[in-house]
């Protein structure tokens, strides 16, 4: 009995707390402020960020639950029923039912999209949650890791058979980073420059390291930039009549032979052949045919480390050769090759249209690479323009790498292949949809779309097939799912593909019922209830 009383008085306290009108005002305002914040976040950072940060976050669920408690206890506290509150009961019952309906939808509803490429059967519904699939093809095994619906970087701390999943970035952008090398090799150097004119400029990162994401050449409008080992720079500075440079790819040494050092002859077909001595070795080339040297049988030898090329090829258009802290280019006015040296932070002038180049960084102890880094996404004119890539940092043994959304990675571990695929969760339909045609009409005389229509065939295996026409405000309802025209895309082959949103909402009935009660209750409560205040000076009827 005492326990009963304690329980009852505790309940009374709970009821008084949540059913209090002041609690209602506070929770309503909290809800409204969160929503306002959400709309601005959506405007600046896009729908997905707003969903992850606010609308589908735990704390926002908490506020909604607070609303639910407030509505529930405000009703309970006013029981047994009083006649003048009938409208109030109906409104609040409606709201409670809407909350229940929404919860059912949240728990067991499906909201996804299906992408239809013309004439290709599809049955895969893409959902909004992310997952990482780890496949072991040799074992025929697959592990799926659900990824958290967060707006921020998160350490997953997940481990499976030596595979460790570390940071998950729901929004990321590739940014340049330096990865230290184990053994320094001057011929695998990397540098970062700024090449600019008074009107425009560009940061250029060039690398000779085989694992770098950056190349050793880059084009900037009319200017071609080539990045080479520093040991080659001396050969570019030497002005020889033939302009030939021969270099050894293994030692990265080079020579720029003078006419005296070159023996010229013709081969059997009459092509010019030259012979030079490099590091004491006699090497023969057909310089007009190939950069490769000839072997003893007069065939081109791909295995030889020697290469030849002529600087003359690079004299007609702007070519800039960079060797870390050295640069070489053909000065057309002086009609000769010039070289220049610069240290980090220094700049030199180039002979084309006021171009200048500044050395920003030069390293042999590390190579540049593009690593995903967390960014807040940016939305402009209704389009997310930054941060759309998701990424997970994976670590196996002493190796660490990133798996990005839409770019599956295959990894070899002791001869066993492991495939990592970061993508959306999906659901398989028990039937197939085929897009026969996507049609877009425009308003007469304009390019403005007037309608989007998908003509679809639905195949149910042995149960036969049926034709359907899906367009705006005319969805296809089949079994539990409803398919709505949502978007379209152009395939490489030309015809349009269609995107349908797919929906299953078990809470629908309750939401509609609650809405109806809410509206009827409001009318009852407001319109039919209260006697108005009488105008001063007039008698009450």
């Amino acid at each position: 009995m005492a326990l009963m009383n304690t329980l009852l008085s505790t309940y009374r306290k709970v009821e008084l707390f949540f059913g209090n009108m002041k609690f209602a005002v506070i929770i309503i305002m909290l809800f409204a402020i969160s929503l306002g914040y959400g709309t601005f976040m959506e405007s600046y950072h896009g729908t997905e960020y707003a969903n992850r940060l606010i609308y589908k976050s735990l704390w926002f669920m908490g506020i909604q639950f607070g609303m639910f408690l407030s509505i529930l206890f405000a009703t309970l506290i006013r029981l047994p029923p009083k006649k003048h509150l009938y409208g109030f009961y109906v409104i609040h019952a409606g709201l409670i039912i809407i909350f229940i309906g929404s919860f059912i939808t949240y728990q067991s509803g499906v909201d996804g999209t299906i992408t239809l490429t013309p004439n290709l059967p599809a049955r895969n519904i893409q959902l909004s949650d992310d997952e990482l699939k780890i496949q072991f093809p040799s074992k025929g095994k697959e592990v799926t890791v659900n990824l958290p619906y967060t707006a921020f970087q998160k350490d997953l701390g997940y481990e499976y058979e030596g595979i460790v999943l570390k940071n998950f970035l729901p929004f990321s952008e590739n940014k340049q980073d330096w990865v230290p090398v184990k053994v320094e090799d001057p011929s695998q150097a990397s540098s970062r420059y700024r090449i600019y004119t008074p009107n425009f400029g560009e940061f250029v990162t060039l690398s000779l390291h085989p694992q770098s994401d950056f190349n050793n050449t880059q084009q900037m409008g009319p200017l071609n930039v080539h990045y080479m080992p520093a040991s080659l720079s001396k050969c570019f500075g030497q002005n020889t009549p033939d302009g030939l440079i021969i270099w050894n790819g293994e030692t990265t040494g080079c020579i720029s032979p003078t006419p005296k050092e070159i023996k010229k002859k013709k081969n059997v077909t009459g092509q010019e052949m030259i012979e030079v001595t490099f590091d004491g070795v006699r090497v023969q080339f057909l310089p007009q045919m190939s950069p490769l040297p000839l072997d003893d049988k007069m065939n081109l030898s791909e295995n030889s480390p020697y290469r030849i090329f002529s600087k003359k090829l690079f004299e007609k258009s702007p070519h800039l050769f960079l060797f870390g802290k050295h640069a070489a280019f053909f000065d057309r006015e002086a009609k000769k090759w010039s070289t220049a040296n610069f240290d980090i932070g220094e700049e030199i002038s180039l002979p084309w249209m006021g171009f200048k180049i500044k050395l920003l960084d030069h390293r042999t102890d590390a190579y540049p690479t593009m690593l995903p880094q967390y960014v807040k996404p940016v939305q402009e004119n209704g389009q997310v323009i930054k941060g759309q890539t998701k990424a997970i940092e994976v670590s196996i043994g002493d190796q660490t790498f990133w798996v990005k959304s839409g770019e599956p990675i295959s990894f070899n571990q002791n001869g066993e292949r492991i495939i990592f695929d970061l993508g959306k969760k999906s659901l398989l339909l028990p039937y197939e949809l085929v897009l026969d045609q996507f049609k877009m009409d425009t308003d007469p005389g304009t390019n403005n779309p007037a309608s989007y229509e998908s003509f679809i065939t639905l195949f149910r295996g042995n149960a036969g097939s049926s034709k359907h026409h899906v367009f705006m405000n005319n969805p296809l309802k089949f079994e539990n799912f409803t398919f709505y025209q949502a978007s379209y895309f152009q395939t490489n082959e030309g015809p349009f593909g269609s995107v349908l949103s797919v929906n299953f909402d078990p809470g629908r009935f309750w939401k509609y019922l609650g809405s109806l009660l809410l509206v009827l209750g409001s009318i009852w409560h407001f319109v039919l209830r209260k006697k108005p205040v009488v105008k001063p000076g007039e008698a009450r009827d």
Partner: protein
Amino acid sequence: MIKFIFIFLMTVTSAMAQMDFCTKELETYPVQAGGREKPLYVLANETVRFMTGSDKIGELSATEAFCKLSLKAFGMPLELPVAIKVDHVEVRKLLGLSEDQTSIPVNELEAKSGLLTEEMAQLKENNSYKKELSKVEQRLNTYRAIINARAWIVPLKKDDKIEFVSIGEFLTQSRVESAQGKGSNPVSYLFAEAKADYLAAKGDKYLLELKYYKWNLFVWALLSSLLSIILFVVMKNKIPGFIFAGLTIVMEIVAMTIRVMISGRAPITNMYETVMFSGFGALVIACFIYFMRRDLMFILAGLACNVLGLMMMKFANGMLDEGISPLVPVLRDNFWLSTHVSTIILSYAGLALSWLLANVLLIKSRFGNVSSQEYRYQVDLIYTCIKVGVVLLAAGIILGGVWADYSWGRFWGWDPKETWSLIVLLIYMAILHGKYTSWITPKRFVPMVAGAFMSVMMAWFGVNYILASGLHSYGFSEGGAIFLGSFFLIQTVILIIGSLKISKEA
């Protein structure tokens, strides 16, 4: 070849020069523009106003000027004083204008058009300056389209079907030559023939739009509303006031009906139409409440809201586009569009009434003497309007959910427009619930109601003009941010002035 073209152009120009082709009669000529068929008068006025900000070019009406400019393509030697509108001060500076020069002669602009393109290419951020640059460029391109005979799209019967072609394609050499000798001159013969074909095939329904624009019913409604307010205030006898209030309603119903007949849809699909419908709605709701509560304040508030709406329609052309254009596919469902949007707009109208009454009471009690009994009564009037607004808003939001569920498969999607309409409901709910606590006394209720309308303005205009993203971005246009900013500023100033007294009393 050059000789041939020259002779052909001579035929066209001399034919046109002979008979003064560009007359007011062309106003009724059917054209195609923006995906619709309309009279040339409407196209010419919309185009000339877009380019120059005025309805005339020199002494010529928009139709005459549009026609003459189009004929430049056929070698008609003619110089019209076309001046392209430039709104942004920074753009004026860029074009070498002084800060108070609102337009630039088109030839000067043509000479500086490279400057525009260059400046736009250099700007990364899509700010108001860049938007205005691109708008000026659009105006110039519109001019170019006219003088190249691309802007005037006329009907032409081909294989028993009416097609639309630009007059560049309409007046081809072979067609003009084949019409030689028919009628008074070949060009007017071709135009008359095409119009007759069009009328035979499609009738003259398109001419309704000409009447709609020429009658200017909304301007008359504005005058009638103002007159009604004056009569109510000045005269003891309320009947004349009611007559003009009724006349206003009738004129607005006629105007909106014509608009519906032209566009074939409910008159609530863009900002211009929602402002129009809300002003009308406020007056109608006010009349309904008047029949229940019998207080003239409602009618006066309704008329005032109606006047505000009509003023915006008349004078805020930069923000509200009067033109009738086809809908984006998402909205092409008349039933749901009509019910959902009109319910929401009516609820805004109801809340606008409460906002107006609250501000009036705020200022009255600040500068005049309002007895506490009178104050309580006025609060009750405000409360009545809020009740109407809130019930309609809840119903409208739910109808929107039902439409979204029906068209997109989800009841609710946190789209900014729907989210803001929910915020509005929540704010008014917080006020209505707070009324039962000690937090919101009648003295605090009034400024809160006046301030709460800022959330309505945010949901109504702010989402389109400030947030401008999501499914509802169909109403996006320029100039609204300044309007909204000014509204918030003025409302805040009124609140501060009004609340000074309250704190003095307390």
